[in-house]
C-alpha cells in the first residue's frame, strides 16, 4: 500500500494521470477506463484483497435487482428478494464496520456471564469506503424495487457505481440515477478542469491549513485532560466542530473537485451548515448525502408505513391534529436518527449523533409554540440579525455537545467529559487567565498558528457568504478580472504550500470521516 490519502502528492499525481487516461480513451470506452482507474486506485489505497467485498456487494445487488424486476408481477417475491439483498449488504457492513457493536456487547455480557465468549474482530480488513458504498448499494436495490431506477444489466457498470474512486474515501453517498453520467463519454473541458482544481485547492486549504492546525490543539487537550482543564475544555468543545467541518468538508471538496475534473458532478455534502438557525436546518446542510439517503430510504418509508399512519391517525383522533403530527414525526425522526447514528459504527454515535438529536428535535417541535409565545412576550424581533446570530450560535453549541461523543472513547467517557465541562466553571478550576498569561500557547500552537486560524476562519465566513449569494465562492471569483482571479488562487496556493500542516516529521491525521 502506498501513501494515497487524498491530500498526498501520490493522490494528486494519480488524479492527473487518471484524467489523462480518461480523456484519451474513446468516448464509448471511457467508463471502462474509469473502472480500471478506480480498481487501480483501490489496490493502491487499500488492502487489495478487500475489493472482494465490493465485488460481493455488487453481485448481490446486481442479481437481486434483475431478479426482482423479472418477478415484478409477484410483489411478494420482489419484496423478499429486495429485503434479502438489503439484509445481506447490511450484514457484511455489520461484520466489519459495525464490529464495535458485537465486540462491545459480547465483552459486556462476558464480564457478567463468563461462560459467554468475548468476541474479537474479524481477521480481515474492511473494504475501503464500506459505509458509503453499502448505502449506495441499498439505495440502488430499493430504487429498483420501487421502479424509480432501471436495473443495470451490465455487471461491470454496476461495479463502477460502487467503486468510483473519488467517493470511496469520504463519500458522498450518491443515488444511482444521479450517477448515471459516469457511463457517458465526455470531451476534455479546460474550464471544468480549472474549476475542479480550484475546488481541490480549497479542500486542501480547509484540511491542511485549518483542520490539521486545530487538531493539534484539540488533541493536546483531549490527550491530557488532567492538565488541560477548566477553560481548555471549553476551547476544545468549541474548536472541534470547526476541525471536523474543515476536515470533512475539505475532503469532500477534494473528492468533488476530482470528480469535476473527470466531468462528473457528485452530490454536495455541505451547504454552509454553521449558518443554520436550528438543529433541524443544520442537519439538512451537514453531511447532506447521508441525510438525504436516510430521508429517502428510512424516514419516508417509515412515515408512509401502514402502522405509522394508523398510529398517527389514532392519536390525532384522540388528542388532536398536533399530537398526531408529532407522533408521526417522532417515529420517522427516531428511525432516521437511529440509523444515522448506527451507520457511524459505535454505540456512542447512536447516543451522540442519533438519539441526542432525536430528543432535541422532538423537544423543539413540542415546545415551539411555547417558545414563540415567549419570544412575543420578550419582544424578540425574529427578523433581526442579532436573533438570527443567537440561533446560529445556539445551533453550533448543541452540535459541539453532540460531538463530545465523537471525541470520547465511549459513552461513559463522554458523560465524564460533559460533567468536567460543567465543573470547569467552578472556582479553583475556572482559569480564564490562560488567554492573558501566554499559557494558551502551551497546547502545541504558536501565536502565528492562532493568527492563521483566525484569518482562515474569516476567509471561510467570506466564502460562505459568497456561496449563499453566488452558488459557489468560485462563481464570484470567476466574475472578477483575470489579475484579481489569479491573485486569489495564487494567494490560496501560497497559504496551502507554506502554512499547510504536511511534510516529514508531521503526522497528518487521517480524515475523520475516512474511517466510515
Amino acid at each position: 500500500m502506498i501513501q494515497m490519502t487524498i491530500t498526498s502528492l501520490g493522490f494528486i499525481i494519480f488524479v492527473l494521470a487518471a484524467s489523462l487516461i480518461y480523456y484519451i480513451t474513446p468516448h464509448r470506452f471511457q467508463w471502462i477506463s474509469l473502472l480500471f482507474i478506480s480498481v487501480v486506485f483501490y489496490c493502491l489505497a487499500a488492502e487489495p484483497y478487500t475489493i472482494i467485498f465490493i465485488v460481493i456487494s455488487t453481485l448481490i445487488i446486481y442479481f437481486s435487482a434483475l431478479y426482482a424486476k423479472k418477478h415484478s408481477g409477484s410483489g411478494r417475491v420482489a419484496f423478499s428478494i429486495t429485503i434479502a439483498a438489503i439484509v445481506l449488504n447490511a450484514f457484511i457492513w455489520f461484520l466489519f464496520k459495525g464490529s464495535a457493536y458485537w465486540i462491545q456487547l459480547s465483552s459486556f455480557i462476558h464480564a457478567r456471564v463468563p461462560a459467554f465468549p468475548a468476541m474479537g474482530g474479524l481477521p480481515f480488513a474492511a473494504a475501503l469506503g464500506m459505509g458509503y458504498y453499502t448505502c449506495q448499494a441499498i439505495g440502488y436495490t430499493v430504487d429498483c424495487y420501487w421502479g424509480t431506477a432501471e436495473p443495470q444489466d451490465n455487471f461491470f457498470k454496476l461495479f463502477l457505481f460502487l467503486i468510483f474512486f473519488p467517493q470511496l474515501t469520504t463519500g458522498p453517498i450518491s443515488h444511482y440515477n444521479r450517477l448515471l453520467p459516469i457511463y457517458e463519454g465526455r470531451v476534455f473541458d479546460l474550464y471544468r478542469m480549472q474549476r475542479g482544481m480550484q475546488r481541490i485547492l480549497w479542500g486542501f486549504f480547509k484540511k491542511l491549513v485549518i483542520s490539521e492546525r486545530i487538531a493539534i490543539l484539540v488533541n493536546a487537550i483531549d490527550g491530557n485532560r488532567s492538565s488541560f482543564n477548566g477553560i481548555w475544555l471549553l476551547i476544545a468543545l468549541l474548536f472541534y466542530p470547526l476541525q471536523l467541518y474543515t476536515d470533512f468538508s475539505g475532503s469532500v471538496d477534494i473528492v468533488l473537485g476530482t470528480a469535476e475534473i473527470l466531468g462528473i458532478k457528485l452530490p454536495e455534502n455541505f451547504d454552509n451548515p454553521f449558518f443554520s438557525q436550528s438543529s433541524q436546518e443544520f442537519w439538512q446542510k451537514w453531511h447532506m448525502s447521508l441525510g438525504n439517503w436516510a430521508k429517502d430510504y428510512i424516514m419516508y418509508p417509515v412515515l408512509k408505513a401502514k402502522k405509522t399512519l394508523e398510529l398517527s391517525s389514532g392519536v390525532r383522533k384522540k388528542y388532536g391534529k398536533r399530537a398526531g403530527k408529532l407522533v408521526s414525526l417522532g417515529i420517522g425522526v427516531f428511525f432516521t436518527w437511529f440509523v444515522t447514528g448506527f451507520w457511524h459504527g459505535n454505540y456512542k454515535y447512536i447516543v451522540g449523533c442519533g438519539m441526542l438529536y432525536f430528543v432535541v428535535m422532538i423537544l423543539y417541535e413540542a415546545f415551539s409554540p411555547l417558545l414563540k409565545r415567549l419570544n412575543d412576550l420578550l419582544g424578540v424581533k425574529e427578523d433581526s440579525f442579532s436573533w438570527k446570530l443567537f440561533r446560529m450560535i445556539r445551533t453550533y453549541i448543541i452540535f459541539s455537545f453532540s460531538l463530545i461523543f465523537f471525541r470520547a472513547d465511549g459513552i461513559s467517557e463522554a458523560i465524564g467529559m460533559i460533567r468536567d465541562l460543567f465543573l470547569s466553571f467552578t472556582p479553583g478550576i475556572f482559569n480564564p487567565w490562560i488567554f492573558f498569561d501566554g499559557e494558551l500557547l502551551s497546547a502545541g500552537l504558536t501565536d502565528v498558528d492562532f493568527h492563521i486560524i483566525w484569518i482562515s476562519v474569516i476567509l471561510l465566513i467570506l466564502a460562505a457568504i459568497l456561496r449563499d449569494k453566488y452558488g459557489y465562492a468560485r462563481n464570484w471569483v470567476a466574475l472578477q478580472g483575470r489579475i484579481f482571479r489569479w491573485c486569489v488562487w495564487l494567494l490560496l496556493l501560497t497559504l496551502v504550500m507554506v502554512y499547510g500542516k504536511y511534510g516529514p516529521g508531521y503526522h497528518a491525521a487521517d480524515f475523520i470521516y475516512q474511517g466510515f
Partner: protein
Amino acid sequence: MKKNNWLFTVIFILVVFMLFMGLSRILTNKTSEYRKAEFFNAETDFDALFFGASRIREAVDPIYLWKNYGISSYNMASAGESIQMTYYVLAEALRKSTPKVVFIDSAKISDEPDSIDSGYGFVHESIDALPINKNKLEAIDYAGRFFEGGRLAFLSMMYAYHDRYEELDKDDFVMKPNYDKGAYIMTTVLGADKPVHLTDEAEDLKGGDGVRYYQRILDLCNSKGIKCVLVDIPVSKKMYSEDRQRKLNALIKMTRENGGETIAFNELIDEIGLDYDHCFGDRGHMNFLGSEKICDHLAGYMMDLGIRDHRDDPAYSISWNEDVIKWSDRKVEDLSERTDAVDYMFWAADDDHKITLYIKDMDDLYDQYAMDFCLEKLGIEPIEADEKILGGYDMNIEVRDKNGVFLAEQFFKYNFSSGLFTVE
C-alpha cells in the same frame, strides 16, 4: 478565445512554478548551502579536501592551513554526517575538484546493516547544497529509505522546509556569503581527559552499510588516483572505548589493504603536543587550539606528499588573501553572537585586532575556566574600571583594529552560579 484560454493557462502554470520555486528558495534551510556553496563557486582548485562529520569539521581550519602553510584546501564535512552521505558529497566534490589528497573522518563509519547512522536534519545539511544530478538522486534514494517523508523529503525543499515560516530572517532573503572554507572553528575552551591506547585487536567487519560505502570511497579515490587518508580525530577518554578502538583498527587495516593511509591522532597526542586542558570547545569537539595542532601535523603530512606552498602564486593568493580578509571582517560582524567572555576574546583574536578588557572586580576574573589562560595567550592586560565605563555590567571587552578604529564591544555580567562572564 479558446486559444487565449490555453495561452493564459500556460502563463498561469508558469507563474505557479515561479511562485513555487521562489517560496522554496526563501523557506529552504540555508545551512548546507552556506557551508558548501563557497566550494562549488570557488575560482581556484584545492590541493586537499576534508570529509566527514563534525569532528573533522571543527578540527581542520583551511584558513589556518593557508595563512601558515599556503595550502589550498576546503573542509566539506558537516555535522552528524554518515559515511554514506560522505561518499555522495565526495563524489560530487571530485566532479568539481581534483585534489591530491582527501581526508576522511573515521567517526561515522557504521558497520550495521540497513542503518544510516545519521539524523534527518544532518542528512539535509550534507546533501541539500549538492546540485541535482544522478549522484544526488542516488543519495536521496538511499537516504529516503530511512526517514519519514521518504525521498520527497530530500527532493522537494518546499516539502521539507515549508514550516520554517516562523524562523525566517534576513539571511533567508539575502544569502550571506561565507568565507570560512567550510570549517566550524570553536573558540570556547574546555578541558578533557586524555584517552589511552586500549587494544591492538581489530574486529571482524560485517560489511554493514557504512563499511560498504567506505569501500566505495576507497575505490573512487583509487580510480581517480587520489590519496585517501582515514583520520581519527582526538576525543576525550570517555569516548574512547575498547570497541571503538577495535573497529578503528579494522578500518585502518581495511584502508591500508586498499592503498589508503591513516592518521590516528589519538595515538599522536603527545607527539603533536595537544594540550588536553584547553584543546576542546565542547565535550566532543576540538577548539581552535586543538585545530591548530591537527592542522600543523596535517600540513607536514601534505608537504611530504608534495603539496606546495601557494602563497607566492597569484593564481591562488589573490583570491585566498581576499577571502582571509573577508573572513576576518565576518568574524567581527558575528562577534555579537558570542555570549561567553573567553569565547568572545578568542573569536575576536586576530593579528590586526587589539582587544581591551575592562573589569569591575579583578578577583572575579580568575574564577572563569580558561580566563587566565586566554588573557595570557592573547597577551591582554585587564584594566579595572568603574561604573562610568561599565554601566551596570561587570566586564566590557572592546575590539579595535590596528589603527585604533573601534570595531565592536560587548558587556558581560558575572554569573555567580556558573562562575562565567556571560551576556545577559
